[in-house]
């Protein structure tokens, strides 16, 4: 399966702390994206990083990509209660660029 694997599966941290989630994948990619899903809702696209990029920032989000290790990380700084959600990485692969494949997700819970 080309599906990505996130770790940890679940993460609980105190509000204000930083949260780091990791994603690994198996085959070469064009892009990697991170999505957020609030409970009972659809997914929201957060950030895309291309295979020739190593790091990208968007507000409190920082994404890194290491294509040699086939892995990515998502860092959320200064977490807030509203960041409580599931986070999924998704990849589009060079042999199937007409779709993206979602990882298993990390459930993040921000404690007040």
């Amino acid at each position, binding site marked *: 399966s080309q*599906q990505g694997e996130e770790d940890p599966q679940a993460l609980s941290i105190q509000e204000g702390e930083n949260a780091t989630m990791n994603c690994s994948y198996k085959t070469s990619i*064009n*892009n990697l*994206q991170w999505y957020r899903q609030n409970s*009972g*809702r*659809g*997914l*929201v*696209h957060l950030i*895309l990083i291309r295979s020739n990029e190593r790091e990208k920032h968007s507000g409190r989000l920082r994404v890194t990509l290491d294509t040699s290790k086939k892995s990515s990380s998502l860092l959320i700084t200064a977490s807030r209660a509203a960041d409580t959600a599931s986070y*999924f990485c*998704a990849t*589009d692969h060079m042999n199937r*660029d*007409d*779709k*993206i*494949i*979602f*990882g*298993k*997700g990390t*459930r993040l819970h921000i404690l007040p």
Partner: protein
Amino acid sequence: SAVISQKPSRDICQRGTSLTIQCQVDSQVTMMFWYRQQPGQSLTLIATANQGSEATYESGFVIDKFPISRPNLTFSTLTVSNMSPEDSSIYLCSVADRNPSIQYFGAGTRLSVL
């Protein structure tokens, strides 16, 4: 970004019946996708809805079980046919313009089959 309306938001259905889920977009889009998400799990792509032609199904999903229509560039339906309790899941519609990497999702349909 696109705004997607998905109906119904939830339903409880009897075994053996069928349910049709609608996905309406506020603008014309190139690509429309249907996913299934079982509780606490990731998303699995069911099919890509193609305008004016048959949908492209992923391995493990067949047209007889999940017929899909896409009559135009703003609307699609997914039918879950002859339902069984194993079909209980969240079904999500998403759209993309030319780049499938960036998709916009509907709120999903939470289906329970008794």
